[in-house]
């Protein structure tokens, strides 16, 4: 028989956003329980495993054994495979590591546990407990046995397929045009370049891209994201990825040793991420960058803010929606503008023809950009193909 529990802060989900939230709440003096429905933190991996690195120090993550490769830059391939190289000098935080994602998640969970968080495995939330309109915890099952966890502050960090946010009444639903469906193979015996993360744009992956993230010499994650609204028949993500691999001998000769899939939101930020006694963070809160599909950095950055505010609410004895606005305001100040700008850019990019993609990448050949942003890219494109930038007046 599992005993009912009472805690200050309850975090649902032990991914990066959950562990980061739990750790910071504990560091700020709260009693924290983090529950994870699986038997193993970080597994199975559902991730391309590429991430930026500049933000790590800010949130207190030290580089560890989970790093496979530190890349020098990224290469964007247009449909005719002209290359635009983004290097560390002008991209700053946009380049970084290819990681062993399960190791990364475990390292963060270890940090959380060492900060005092109680981690419960094989424990899934089954509904939220509400009293007088306030979320006061969850009903859960641990090893199949039902019990209750009561908390002053409950936090949903349950990832892309979040249930907890919807139970709490937050509108986390996404539109078909705001989701990419993804599939990836780990391939060995391929000719990848461990200096770069590669991205292939255009009709090879409608509304998304094909990625090559090198794990080691001859070993890479080869994946695809396709916008759901652009899919016509079943299993198209797999068909597009297989077709791309077939056309690229450097990868077609490789062997698949692993396959992962999943959904990625490419939506504008949620309008509301707190309610009485409750906050939502990470992929569950649709914090994924709509342009890159990256969610780890934003989830960790917001997680630190979320955990800190949760502890403050506990100390103040006030888990009201009004008090938790500190989190809402904090993460928005840090992330919202870029999320919204990148969502607009994504909306535009998904309408471009292969010809236009080629022109954009062609115009950037040999051009020196001081700082990499949409504005500077468009200025460079305007110099060579003024007709292309007409559609982008709003960004200039």
């Amino acid at each position: 028989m599992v005993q009912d529990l009472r805690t200050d802060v309850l975090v649902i989900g032990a991914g990066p956003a959950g562990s980061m939230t739990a750790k910071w709440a504990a560091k700020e003096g709260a009693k924290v329980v983090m529950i994870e429905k699986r038997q193993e933190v970080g597994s199975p991996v559902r991730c391309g495993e590429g991430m930026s690195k500049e933000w790590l120090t800010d949130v207190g993550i030290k580089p560890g054994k989970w790093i496979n490769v530190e890349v020098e830059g990224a290469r964007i391939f247009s449909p005719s495979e002209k290359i635009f190289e983004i290097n560390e000098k002008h991209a700053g935080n946009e380049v970084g590591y290819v990681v062993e994602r399960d190791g990364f998640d475990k390292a963060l969970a270890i940090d959380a546990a060492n900060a005092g968080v109680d981690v419960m495995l094989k424990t899934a939330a089954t509904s939220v407990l509400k009293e007088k309109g306030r979320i006061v915890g969850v009903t859960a099952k641990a090893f199949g046995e039902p019990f209750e966890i009561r908390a002053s502050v409950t936090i949903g960090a349950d990832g892309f397929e979040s249930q907890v946010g919807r139970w709490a009444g937050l509108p986390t639903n996404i539109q078909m045009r705001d989701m990419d469906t993804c599939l990836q193979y780990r391939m060995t015996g391929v000719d990848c370049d461990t200096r770069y993360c590669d991205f292939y744009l255009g009709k090879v992956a409608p509304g998304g891209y094909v990625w090559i993230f090198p794990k080691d010499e001859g070993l890479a994650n080869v994946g695809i994201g396709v916008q759901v609204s652009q899919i016509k028949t079943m299993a198209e993500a797999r068909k597009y990825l297989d077709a791309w691999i077939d056309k690229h001998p450097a990868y077609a000769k490789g062997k698949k040793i692993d396959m992962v899939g999943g959904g990625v939101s490419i939506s504008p930020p949620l309008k509301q991420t707190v309610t009485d006694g409750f906050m939502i963070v990470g992929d569950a809160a649709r914090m994924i960058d709509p342009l890159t599909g990256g969610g780890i950095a934003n989830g960790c950055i917001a997680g630190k803010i979320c955990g800190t505010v949760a502890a403050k609410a506990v100390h103040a004895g006030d888990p009201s929606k009004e008090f938790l606005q500190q989190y809402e305001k904090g993460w928005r100040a840090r992330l919202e503008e870029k999320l919204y700008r990148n969502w607009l850019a994504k909306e535009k990019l998904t309408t471009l023809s292969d010809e236009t993609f080629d022109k954009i990448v062609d115009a950037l050949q040999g051009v020196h950009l001081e700082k990499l942003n949409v504005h500077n890219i468009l200025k460079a494109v305007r110099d060579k193909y003024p007709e292309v930038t007409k559609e982008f007046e709003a960004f200039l």
Partner: protein
Amino acid sequence: MPDKKRLHIESSGQLCIYCGACVGICPLNCIYLDETRITFDEKICTRCEICVKACPVGAIEIG
């Protein structure tokens, strides 16, 4: 609801990779993923077919 169509999720592992893409996109929140088991609530499901498109491997059929 006029309902001749049936949603079928192949979740025995022949096709399904338990990635959760269908769970996240379902506008009615009626698909559930439990480790290696996917279920859906037939009473809530409206056969909107969004999950069919969201499935990267084609494990969901309506017919």
